[in-house]
């Protein structure tokens, strides 16, 4: 990556280089998040609402936290505001959807109604939060991550239309866990500098990992719990017919 940036170096100011480094880092981070999502799904057994949802959570958290260059406080600010926004969007979407679910309506207008309710609640959250709490935090929220989180309501609605509220909550929580893990991982300075310095190596590693996960046929961690009854049986307590005849 350094090499690619160095091609541009002649034309850019140091400030612009920082900006472009950040953009490049975020772009190569996308497959890192989806690799983690795949790992969590196939090896651990945590579901996510979609491939897109953990990416949204990760980058929204990342951007929400990114106010100044002080990276250590950024992580917790991102976690704090990101969590609040995520929970608000989820609860508002579920509530509004439960109200309009019985209506006979087309899917997109229905989702739009949900999104309107989410937008209103978010606006009020920003107003109230700024009046009563940390002034700096909510006003400085970048509009882009905000929009990303609001669009999650589409993902929530599509899951709610297929599954119950409880099931959606569980999957929503799992998505959040995956997103936060990815967010924490990408917030490490070592990861950032590695990704920028050895981009090609990183991409190669990701390809190898994905080929491995893609062909993984073992039990998922959650399945060890789900089938514990069978797994903990004495292997010989049911002799096959052949053995019994002996």
């Amino acid at each position, binding site marked *: 990556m350094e090499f690619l940036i160095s091609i541009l170096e002649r034309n850019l100011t140091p400030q612009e280089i920082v900006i472009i480094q950040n953009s490049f880092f975020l772009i190569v981070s996308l497959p890192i998040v989806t690799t983690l999502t795949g790992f969590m799904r196939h090896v651990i057994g945590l579901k996510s609402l979609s491939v897109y949802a953990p990416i949204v959570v990760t980058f929204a958290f990342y951007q929400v936290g990114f106010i100044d260059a002080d990276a250590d406080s950024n992580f917790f600010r991102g976690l704090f505001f990101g969590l609040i926004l995520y929970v608000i969007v989820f609860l508002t979407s579920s509530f509004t959807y439960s109200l309009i679910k019985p209506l006979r309506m087309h899917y997109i207008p229905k989702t739009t109604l949900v999104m309107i309710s989410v937008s209103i609640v978010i606006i009020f959250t920003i107003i109230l939060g700024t009046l009563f709490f940390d002034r700096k935090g909510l006003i400085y929220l970048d509009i882009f991550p905000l929009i990303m989180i609001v669009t999650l309501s589409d993902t929530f609605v599509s899951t709610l*239309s297929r599954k119950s509220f409880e099931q959606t909550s569980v999957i929503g929580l799992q998505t959040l866990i995956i997103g936060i893990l990815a967010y924490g991982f990408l917030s490490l300075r070592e990861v950032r500098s590695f990704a920028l310095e050895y981009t090609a190596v990183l991409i190669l590693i990701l390809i190898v990992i994905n080929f491995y996960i893609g062909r993984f*046929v073992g*039990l998922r961690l959650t399945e060890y719990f789900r089938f514990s009854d069978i797994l903990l049986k004495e292997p010989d307590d049911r002799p096959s017919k052949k053995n019994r005849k002996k």
Partner: protein
Amino acid sequence: MIDLLRRIGKNRKTVLGLNERYLEYIRPYNLSPAIEIADDKVLTKEVLSAHDIPVPETIAVIRSYDDLNHIDFDAFPSSFVIKPVHGVRGGGVEIIYNRDKNGEWIMSRGRRIDLEGIKSLCRDIIDGRYSLHQERDTVLVEERIKSHKAFRYYSYKGTPDVRVIVFNNIPVIGMLRLPTEQSDGRANLDLGAIGAGIDMAVGKTTFAISGKSGLIEKTPKYNLPVSGLRIPYWTKILRYSIEASKVSGLGFATIDFLIDKEKGPMIVELNARPGISIQLANQVGLRARLKKAAGIKVKTTEKGIRLAKDLFGGEIEEGIEAISGKQVIGLIENVKIFGKDEKEEVTKAKIDTGASSTSIDEKLAIKLGYEDAINHARSILGESKVYFSRDEIKKDANEQKWEERLEEHPDIVDTAIIKQSNGITYRITVEMEFELSGTRVIGLVNIVSRSGLSYKVLIGKKDLKKFLIDPSKKST
């Protein structure tokens, strides 16, 4: 801990997980033309009935509002089922049980619905209210399957369904799903229905899980044992499931049946993505079974049925043995008695379920090293006397403090008042270990003179808990 890990290490190779299900079974064995058949209920029925596999009779297929206007609901039978072709989680399914004098139809919970109401239900389905992402759907009107009487006391409201997973033309595992009050008459496990595993040899249920509470032994309403329920038409079910898998082209599929009380089993659904909870209902891993079934050449349906029964049956008898761990014995058995100071005696014993405790002859007890205890008892009780009533014996025992004095002896652990053919006697009880048909029992044995009787030992109920008695069995 190490033992647990060893078990998990061995057993995990028997369980099928979602990763392997998709990569090793669904992808290679279910190609998209076959999946298309399974995903469309109307198409499924066309394919199956073209090959004479029974399916519920289609009354009408309504694809549009225009279709709806041309359908004469009055010509329908009085009882039928309305369902969306691409419904999600059983939504939109309505069962019409009958029609009353006013021409209104009767639905579940006694609700009434008129013609306009039924049309409105159909319009909801066509508009996609119950389908994924509200996409337009088709209404399927079918005959109602009347639940077979075998299930009458086992299921709540709805009709139980039987599902069989077929792989390589061999039915490998099965499950009976019983609707419950919790699941509101639906057969979905995640709504709280019961799933019972099936012994493939005989079609009897083995273990059962309740969707939300793990393994269960009794049904919630009538408290009936969930294991041992015989599924009617089992062999037919195996045959149709193999045939359905063949004609649809699904190499690895779930076949769902309803069993009509008159017409027998009918296929209601094919599924190209078999669920893996069925392993819990059977308490057995599916992977091991799939590995067994793979690679066998199954040329005929008959062979598939035979293989299913031979390879995947026998769970029930093994289940009972494993649970009860009981030995089967006859009425007369050789018994080996372990006395004091490593003395042993072998003799024939009478198995007597009419007696509550075990008795042994005085002379035999002396041989086993209880002479001292017997002499001690004689010094207190005198020559054993036969009484005619319990009160009399209790009176003597209390007055002379028999029990306290007898139990001063280390071998005598208790005393007993025993009724015998000629009256009632007071006896001493000692602890003795004996072996019957290879099983060891530590019993409290009372000592009495059995000199005139043919068996020196009589084993009573208290010491027979580990055995099942078969009167026709001869001792060896």
